[in-house]
């Protein structure tokens, strides 16, 4: 078993340590730096795939960490953690390859690309760390490190005020969730002596701990995966370079929230509030974000809302006790969303804008990107036999079976919305007439290659379902619900699921024609929802209001402190009187 621990440690720490080498490599020029980053990321990706060869249901103690307090660094490599780790490693490596061409522009603007690569490598390693850590405290530390990495990457173009603001918002919101996770982890440690995920999911918890621990986990997961009402930061994080968006949306950050609830789900199975919260928040967020994606006019923000919506499917699936469906949809989402984002990056670089109204008619000039984007959109919309059909229908049928009618209706609506906004965004970018003149820059080879590879993977990725389900059954005894093949086909071809897919397809075809009429000329359709969406359904406004209020209180506190020595001493003496009085009163001595 020692080699399992060694392999896991290597998959986590090789990218983290190699991040430190980027500035050194950069001293030998741009090619050396890019080459080093690609090799380091490829090794990290290979190691994360290598983890899949060592799956086992049992955790392994890798090292003693704080012996005085009885804390170890324990790793757990099963189908769930293996999937999340491999997604982080492989997609992270592809993003790095793509970046060698994409980051040229940022380099010309004077931003430090060496810093970018270093943070990306650290991000990959820490995400693998989140996946493989069985120790709750180590999990929390990696969890916070990926938060810091996303902060650094969202604020990468630090000369733009919007980027700095978005980075801070992302950090504060995810840290708020992190505070919930910290309270949960510490409460488990202090009151139940539970320090690992395995202990958490196998030992019965005292009833009194459920609200604190379950609530803390949910808060952390919803904030990290941008679920309602914490969804505001993710669209705003689109200020980052597009490669960062792909990394955050497909490979790393937002997956962490889903992973956390899927990982800890068995511990809360008996607590009704848990399942209802997941089902309702997930399905509601899926619809809300789907509506937003339908009216947004910024290409990247459309994709961001679509991520939020797809994550809603995964949370709802976990709520319906279908951990495998969530796990498989996570893989599917990672593939098609990485393809979409990286294709979008090529488009944005080609036309120099993110505004959908200024695109259109790009199909002839960007053939490879266009076909890849189309395949990814169809996969996202759930067109058979692409990966999204299998994964989404699995999630849908689980929720339909769960008996929660509200969640089922919402999720069906979200599936239909997915087809609608997918058709819309594809149409606005590639079809119709061009709505803005200007050159269309050719897509560099490394970028086109990565996009095509990811689109191909989202087309045939469903073939991974068999081995994945087998591995889940073998290593996730506590989680269950990984169907074997016949059950799988039965699930996916159940009447309800087929009906939903049919509806989605109908919408896809219908909206094709609709968008076509709508955008025949380059007019700006004033959707009534636009303004609401621009403030992220009030989430941004709420964040602003809280920040404003904190500032106001701070200003008031500062105003009270006049700096007048007489007042200072008076305050001290008054405090003394108040303290003596209060103490005597409470102590019952008066």
């Amino acid at each position, binding site marked *: 078993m020692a080699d399992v621990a060694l392999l896991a440690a290597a998959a986590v720490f090789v990218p983290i340590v190699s991040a430190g080498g980027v500035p050194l490599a950069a001293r030998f020029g741009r090619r050396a730096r890019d080459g080093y980053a690609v090799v380091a990321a490829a090794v990290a990706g290979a190691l994360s795939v290598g983890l899949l060869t060592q799956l086992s249901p049992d955790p392994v103690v890798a090292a003693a*960490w*704080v*012996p*005085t*307090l009885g804390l170890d660094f324990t790793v757990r490599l099963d189908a769930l953690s293996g999937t999340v780790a491999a997604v982080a490693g492989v997609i992270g490596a592809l993003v790095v390859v793509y970046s060698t061409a994409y980051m040229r522009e940022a380099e010309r603007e004077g931003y430090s690309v060496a810093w970018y690569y270093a943070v990306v490598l650290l991000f990959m390693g820490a995400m693998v760390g989140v996946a493989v850590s069985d120790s709750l*405290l180590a999990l*929390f*530390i990696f969890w*916070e*490190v990926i938060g*810091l990495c996303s*902060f650094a990457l969202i604020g990468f173009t*630090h*000369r733009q005020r919007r980027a700095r603001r978005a980075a*801070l918002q992302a*950090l*504060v919101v995810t*840290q*708020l969730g*992190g*505070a*919930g996770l*910290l*309270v949960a982890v*510490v*409460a488990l*440690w*202090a*009151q139940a002596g539970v320090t690992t995920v395995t202990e958490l999911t196998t030992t019965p918890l005292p009833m009194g701990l459920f609200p*604190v621990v379950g609530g803390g986990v949910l808060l952390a997961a919803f904030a990290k995966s941008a679920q309602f009402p914490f969804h505001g930061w993710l669209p705003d994080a689109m200020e980052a370079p597009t490669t960062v968006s792909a990394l955050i949306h497909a490979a790393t950050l937002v997956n962490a929230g889903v992973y956390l609830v899927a990982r800890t789900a068995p511990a809360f199975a008996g607590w009704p509030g848990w399942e209802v919260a997941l089902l309702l928040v997930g399905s509601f967020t899926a619809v809300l974000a789907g509506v937003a994606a339908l009216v947004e006019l910024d290409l990247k923000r459309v994709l961001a809302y679509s991520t939020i919506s797809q994550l809603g499917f995964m949370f709802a699936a976990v709520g319906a006790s279908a951990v495998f469906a969530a796990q498989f949809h996570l893989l599917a989402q990672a593939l098609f969303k990485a393809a979409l984002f990286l294709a979008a990056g090529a488009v944005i670089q080609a036309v120099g804008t993110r505004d959908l109204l200024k695109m259109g008619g790009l199909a002839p000039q960007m053939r490879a990107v266009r076909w890849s984007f189309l395949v990814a959109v169809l996969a996202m919309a759930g067109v058979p036999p692409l990966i999204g059909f299998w994964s989404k229908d699995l999630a849908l049928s689980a929720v339909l079976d769960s008996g929660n009618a509200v969640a089922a209706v919402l999720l069906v609506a979200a599936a239909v919305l997915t087809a609608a906004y997918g058709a819309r965004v594809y149409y606005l970018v590639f079809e119709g007439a061009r709505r803005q003149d200007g050159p269309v820059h050719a897509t560099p080879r490394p970028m086109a290659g990565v996009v095509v590879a990811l689109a191909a993977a989202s087309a045939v990725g469903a073939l991974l379902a068999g081995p994945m389900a087998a591995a889940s059954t073998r290593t996730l005894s506590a989680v269950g619900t990984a169907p074997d093949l016949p059950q799988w086909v039965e699930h996916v071809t159940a009447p309800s699921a087929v009906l939903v897919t049919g509806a989605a397809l109908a919408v896809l075809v219908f909206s094709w024609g609709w968008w076509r009429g709508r955008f025949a000329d380059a007019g700006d359709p004033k959707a009534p929802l636009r303004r609401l969406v621009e403030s992220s359904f009030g989430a941004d406004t709420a964040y602003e209001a809280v*920040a404003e209020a*904190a*500032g106001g*209180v*701070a*200003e008031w*506190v*500062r105003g009270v*402190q006049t*700096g007048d*020595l007489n*007042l*200072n*001493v008076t*305050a*001290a*003496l008054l*405090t*003394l009187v108040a*303290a*003596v009085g*209060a*103490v*005597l*009163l*409470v*102590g*019952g*001595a*008066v």
Partner: protein
Amino acid sequence: MAEAALVPWPLVVLLVAAPIAWAQARATRGRGARWTGATLAAAAAAAFLLAALDATQPARRLPSALGGAPLEVGGAASLLTMVSAGALAAVALYATRGMREEVGLERLFPLLALTAAGAAGIGMAADLFQLFVFFELMAVSGAGLVAYRLWSFEAIEGAVKYLVQGAVGSMTALLGIALLYLSVGSLDPLVIRAQAASLPPTVALCAAALITIGYGVKAGLVPLHTWLPDAHAAAPAAGAAVLSGIIVPFGVVTLAKTLAAFGAPLADPAGGAGLLVLVLAAVTMTAGNLLAFRQTDIRRMLACSSVAQSGLALLAFGLALTYGAPSAVEAALFVVATTALLKVGAFLAAGALAMEAGSPRIDRLAGTGRRAPLAGAALAVLLLSLAGLPPTGGFIAKLFVAKAALEVPGALPLLLVVVLALNSVLSLGYYVPVAMRLFQSSEGAEPRHTAPRSSQAVAGAAAALAVLLGLFPEPLVAVARVAGAGLLGGA
């Protein structure tokens, strides 16, 4: 080691270093601080090592030596001496080059040494009056550091505030101690503890309140903290580092050690005094963080964040005193040690960057992290650590306090942990923008190279240590466990 420990060597070394530093600085006047700083750093390192030899031994009392009162060595005394001597070594090394533009260095170095000696004495003191005397040694030396730039109005204003508020606090604390002495007839905490249960509750509670408010002034408890921003802005960087790194956290230690003498009334949560301490801690954390928002001077911002850190330390001690939570004393000692490290490092890094920028104003610091990368990176890491982000020592400190709190069943500790966690998020709102600003590009500004490399290196070492402490906390945890066992009389 028992024979060697019959003399409190670390304290002796620090006390002797003061006049030597004075003489050396006088003798080398005009050629700056290089060698004096080196000598003092060597003395501090020696004191640190002497204390470290004893750190794994449980605390024990030495036979009476100074004026008939005993001193303690080993355990918490060793740990606190190491903290104080380590902070002194860093500040002295920084000052070898970082203070070359200052005049009057023959005052600076002895005052630094005496402050550290006072702090070490606080760790060793075994009776309440001795504790008060060492506290005053530390506090009065600190006044000299605040008033260091005698010619400036800022320094005089800061020093007057420091002295007047400090004097009110000291008198109040002394009154509390006198009240206790009057009732029990002893200043030995062990004797007082034994009789605490039979004290009239009015007397015990009044004395506890007087002591809390009195020492609370130096500990920076809200609303007694008002001297901190002015004093920190007036003192030179080395002095501000000692104010926040030693004087404020050791003020909390003094308060906790004195309150520990009460035993029973405080340990009874309904007894009021324990509740007072915990409420003060929560208020101090929150108000300190709020105050730090919208500060325009990096030194004032860090001073306000020291108020918040002080609340954290008091929270841990308060848990130990009120509930007798076993791991709370360890957590509190961990907080004191990391606060000293982070605050000394942050003030020194900020000092180096202010030299580079020619101003301590936060908006003027923009881009200094690019021109002085080592100090810039160090300050960024230290600020994130102060905000309690992993993987740093600041995170582990907050983690341990939260764990100690949640080991106590009940709603109040949970509420306190929620306040602690929310404060952590709140503090990001001012730490992170400053850290980001350091690395914004400042077009047109040429590097002035006025931040000395050695000074930057000291700050860099503090930041590296902060990260190491976050990754491998075991050594400090082990030492804190030994130390915690004896500090508050096994509270």
